[in-house]
């Protein structure tokens, strides 16, 4: 290799030394497209295998949510087909990856966002399977000129991954027309529009308020390709979730406790501010507290089974049973 090729040279008067060489054509060309007669096995692709693993994990991890899972499968299938089309050189516009997740609290929006990032990464649409979660405070500034840098910083942090905007409707305050939220929305739109961008923006929030949010920002709504609706969990699904959580933490219900928990759910479901899976987790958290108190109150020794068992009493001591109007602590939003 000569110095002409490498650009490495000591300074010699009258000699032109390298100022970088443009990449040679052979280095930048993409693999040649497949011929029109060739065939591609969609299921044999590495990416498809990875996506299937993520979808299986989603099924195993999340109870219910049938419609959401079906939509995710559809999206994954479409993106897989898009990839195959690109290999044949068939022109396809860059698929829009931006989504909105609407659903009540505790229905698994954040968890699904994490899985979505993994799917998009496996298919090569994202560089990293990372989710950067933000709220209004991370995007909107306090004074003039503060918003743009903040929003751009959030975009920089989520580059190559997913920007997850929780409670996105707070970005837009219709009652205050000088609110800086509009500026943040405009910058987000700009970024979502750009062709080179390899990031996905997910807007998440409660259904009714998201509706008004999108209605008042039609430009935003039309650029979000996939609207996923998360339904509330049924009582059976919540019981199943409780069992999964307990099994994961090495606890179990006694038979009576199981019945007591079903009663608990019945009562809790009719109360305000029920946050689905999150409420179940909090209820179990409090049952564990009471179990610990009960065990410590015992004289003598405890067995391994005692340490794992949550009894009827641990559940029935809940305030949901004694004060029907009380909302359990920590669930007041």
């Amino acid at each position: 290799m000569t110095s002409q090729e490498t650009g490495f040279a000591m300074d010699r008067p009258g000699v032109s030394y390298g100022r970088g060489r443009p990449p040679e054509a052979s280095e930048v060309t993409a693999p040649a497209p497949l011929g029109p007669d060739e065939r591609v096995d969609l299921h044999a692709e590495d990416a498809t295998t990875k996506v299937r693993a993520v979808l299986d994990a989603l099924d195993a991890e999340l109870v219910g949510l049938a419609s959401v899972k079906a939509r995710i499968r559809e999206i994954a299938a479409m993106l897989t087909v898009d990839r195959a089309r690109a290999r044949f050189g068939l022109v396809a516009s860059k698929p829009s990856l931006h989504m909105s997740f609407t659903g009540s609290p505790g229905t698994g929006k954040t968890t699904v966002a994490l899985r979505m990032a993994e799917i998009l990464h496996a298919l090569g649409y994202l560089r990293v399977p990372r989710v950067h979660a933000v709220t209004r405070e991370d995007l909107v500034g306090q004074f003039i000129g503060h918003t743009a840098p903040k929003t751009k910083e959030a975009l920089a942090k989520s580059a190559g991954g997913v920007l997850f905007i929780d409670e996105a409707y707070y970005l837009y305050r219709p009652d205050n027309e000088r609110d800086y939220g509009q500026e943040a929305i405009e910058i987000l739109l700009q970024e979502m529009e750009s062709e080179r961008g390899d990031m996905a923006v997910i807007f998440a929030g409660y259904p009714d308020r998201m509706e008004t949010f999108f209605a008042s920002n039609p430009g935003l709504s039309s650029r979000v390709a996939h609207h996923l609706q998360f339904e509330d969990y049924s009582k059976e699904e919540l019981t199943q979730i409780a069992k999964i959580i307990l099994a994961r933490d090495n606890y179990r219900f006694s038979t009576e406790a199981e019945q007591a928990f079903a009663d608990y759910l019945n009562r809790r479901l009719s109360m305000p501010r029920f946050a689905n899976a999150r409420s179940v987790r909090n209820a179990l958290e409090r049952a564990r507290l009471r179990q610990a108190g009960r065990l410590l109150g015992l004289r003598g020794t405890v067995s391994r089974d005692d340490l794992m068992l949550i009894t009827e009493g641990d559940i029935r001591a809940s305030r949901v049973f004694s004060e029907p109007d009380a909302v359990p602590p920590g669930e007041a939003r």
Partner: protein
Amino acid sequence: MYLRHGAFSYLPALTEDEIAAQVRYALLNGWPVSVEYTDDPHPRNVYWELWGLPMFDLHEPDGVMREISACRAAFPAHYVRVLAYDARLHRQTIALSFLAQRPAAEPGFRLDRSESGGRAQRYGVHSYATGAPAGARYHGAGYHVPEEP
């Protein structure tokens, strides 16, 4: 005179992808990256102008590349460098520094010699570009730009 400043200065100028790869390396090491510019690249001028604040908590180089582009657009005839700061205890210094832009024409430096006591020789380096006021340098105004060999 081709200014040799920072890492990779004896290599061909880095392409955008190579700059992004270097920034990614810095970010993977947990070094916040910042962008600086100057039109006075005297070897003893260690403090260049900050282009915004250092960028913290990034994972991907896109944000840095955007700032580099913005800095180049604002100062097309300045030197622009990328710095990565290692904040770990016992190091706390710039871990990586390289140029991301240089002016098209670089008139270079003059070596000044002066006598001092006891026939001692003192040396200084004078940048030809500083003949023009700050902001008007490297545009070919106020000094003669030698033809590229």
